[in-house]
């Protein structure tokens, strides 16, 4: 599969002697050393990555890490010093102005942190801007703009001016404007950072809902790790202009490439990221077709359990029996497990976030069953939940 966007050694040096600085950079001098020696600032340092068609690729880093510069290199709002950006096999960094303009018009559009709306234009006229400059007819412009506005839930606001709308609504206009000319690539520069947390979450959800249908290639810049983990299919972490690690949210959390990444992910609310899959254990089970209460009791005594899950031959979950019920049954000489089986089992799936496991486990006297297609995949005990929140070492041990 060919990547939608392929970035190779993309570098931006701000200052008067970029060539000299570039040489130093190739000698692996640090950003500080280069600043001292040449007075030039390294904005982006030889960034290389590829973005697949239809994925949300998040570039995250703290302020000053070069992420905003990097996204502007992708559509050449900033001229790169070195390196190339391949979009559908065409090198954007060497395009002539006309081709570049066409690429910007048809292939990629951008959403800005402070919305970047034109205050003297109405909402609709803002949304139409991209088509207007392409010379699209008024009727077609209007039709497409209205479709885009409806998509972001702003129908009925088309004749208002941006300053009459709230921040969240303004950014919806920004998003609608970017969607109107139906680009394949969407560049979102801290698009939700200026919004308050509740609205931000709402917008993230909406973006993901939209993405379900649109399947655009989205490059999303953020300084907020929670946001990155929430919406990103893959995440690139930046520091001092360099990309430190690229990986899925899980990779980043579980296997931080270095101290920097580790520090970064330290403060993450793990309960939002980790799922049942990460903290479940291999379950002790007994087979309802083979075993009776006697075996169940014996197994529990061996393992030090107060209850045990019951499956059939195909590992389909049937329920659980408690030690009390089992010993009672043995006294009464009941042979069939079916009679003492509790079928009201607390279950979750592998993808249930840990956040949602809290309540279930609090209310339950037995471990929670993790079920996949009716089969018992694992169990979660209280201890594992606490351990996972405390650090990741325990977690990685338990899941292979």
């Amino acid at each position, binding site marked *: 599969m060919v990547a939608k966007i392929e970035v190779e050694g993309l570098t931006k040096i701000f200052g008067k002697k970029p060539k000299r600085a570039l040489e130093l950079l190739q000698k692996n001098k640090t950003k500080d050393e280069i600043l001292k020696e040449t007075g030039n600032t390294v904005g982006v340092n030889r960034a290389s990555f590829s973005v697949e068609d239809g994925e949300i690729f998040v570039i995250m880093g703290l302020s000053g890490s070069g992420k905003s510069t990097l996204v502007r290199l992708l*559509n050449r709002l900033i001229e790169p010093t070195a390196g190339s950006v391949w979009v559908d096999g065409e090198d954007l960094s060497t395009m002539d102005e006309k081709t570049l303009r066409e690429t910007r018009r048809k292939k990629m559009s951008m959403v800005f942190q402070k919305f*970047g709306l034109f*205050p003297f234009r109405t909402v609709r006229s803002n949304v139409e801007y991209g088509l207007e*400059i392409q010379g699209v007819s008024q009727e077609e412009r209007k039709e497409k703009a209205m479709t885009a506005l409806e998509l972001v839930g702003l129908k009925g606001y088309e004749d208002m001016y941006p300053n009459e709308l709230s921040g969240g609504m303004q950014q919806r206009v920004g998003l609608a404007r970017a969607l109107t000319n139906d680009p394949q690539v969407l560049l979102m520069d801290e698009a939700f950072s200026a919004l308050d947390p509740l609205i931000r979450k709402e917008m993230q959800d909406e973006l993901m809902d939209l993405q379900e249908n649109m399947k655009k290639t989205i490059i999303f810049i953020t300084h907020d790790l929670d946001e990155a983990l929430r919406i990103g299919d893959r995440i690139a972490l930046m520091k001092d202009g360099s990309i430190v690690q690229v990986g899925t949210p899980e990779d980043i959390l579980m296997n931080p490439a270095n101290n920097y990444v580790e520090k970064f992910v330290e403060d993450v609310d793990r309960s939002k990221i980790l799922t049942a899959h990460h903290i479940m254990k291999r379950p002790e089970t007994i087979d309802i077709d083979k075993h009776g209460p006697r075996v169940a009791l014996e197994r529990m005594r061996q393992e030090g359990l107060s209850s045990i899950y019951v499956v059939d031959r195909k590992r389909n979950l049937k329920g659980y029996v408690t030690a009390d019920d089992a010993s009672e049954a043995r006294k009464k000489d009941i042979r069939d497990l079916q009679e003492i089986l509790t079928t009201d089992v607390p279950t979750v799936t592998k993808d249930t976030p840990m956040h949602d496991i809290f309540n279930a486990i609090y209310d339950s006297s037995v471990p929670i069953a993790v079920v996949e297609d009716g089969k018992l995949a694992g169990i979660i005990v209280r201890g594992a939940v606490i351990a996972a929140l405390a650090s990741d070492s325990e977690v990685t041990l338990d899941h292979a």
Partner: protein
Amino acid sequence: MLDFMKNVPELPIADWTSNFTDWLTDTFAFLFDPIKNQFGDFMEFTADKLAAIPPVIVILIVAILAFFVSGKKFGLAAFSIVGLLLIYNQGLWEELMFTFTLVLIASVLSVIIGVPIGILMSKSKTAETIITPVLDFMQTMPAFVYLIPAVAFFSIGMVPGVFASLIFATPPTVRLTNLGIRQVPTELVEASEAFGSTASQKLFKVELPMARSTIMAGVNQTVMLALSMVVIASMIGAPGLGREVLSALQRAQVGTGFVAGLGIVILAIIIDRFTQNVNKSK
């Protein structure tokens, strides 16, 4: 202390300037003469036509425009009526029309010349570096000095008056056009570029609309400066209220001078409020 300067002869800057002006006058006579004649005729014509309209109608039109321009308030309209009637009452109506013509034409030309130069400055660091000191020069050189080459090029009358006003009044429009465009938020410029605007689309669809109120502030300044040149321009024979002030000065007639000066003030206030309100209303 300045002994070493003894060996340096006095630089003949004055001679150079004179020679240069003479050269300009001779070389571009083919250009200056038709401008002087055609343009002079055109201005005479405009002023005459304005003066030929019955004052009542002019006053009424100004009052109505004032009413709408100031957002349907009566203040400016009332002031215009009283002020213009006073000027009429003092027998300065024709002078007023000449002065107005001079100011109007000088301002329009200043804007036509100034805005493009301002745009050029905002787009090019080099242009800004070169033009800024020229603007400083134009504004600080005493306005009287411009009268001399103005006369050399265009002899006397309205045309050299407009020429001198142009030099004196254009800088604010240039400066504020430059400033206005440079102050457009980066994100808006980026937005316009990111959607694939050409340079002229960016300029006309984003930058100029965003800079509009700053540019208009510059235009307002330009009009006011053009008006302030009226008295000075009368020294080289430009007709109008300025000439009344000048002749009153020469004859030490305090009263006449005051009345003509008052006329200029009234005109200035009306023009200023008009241009300011046009800026606000949109």
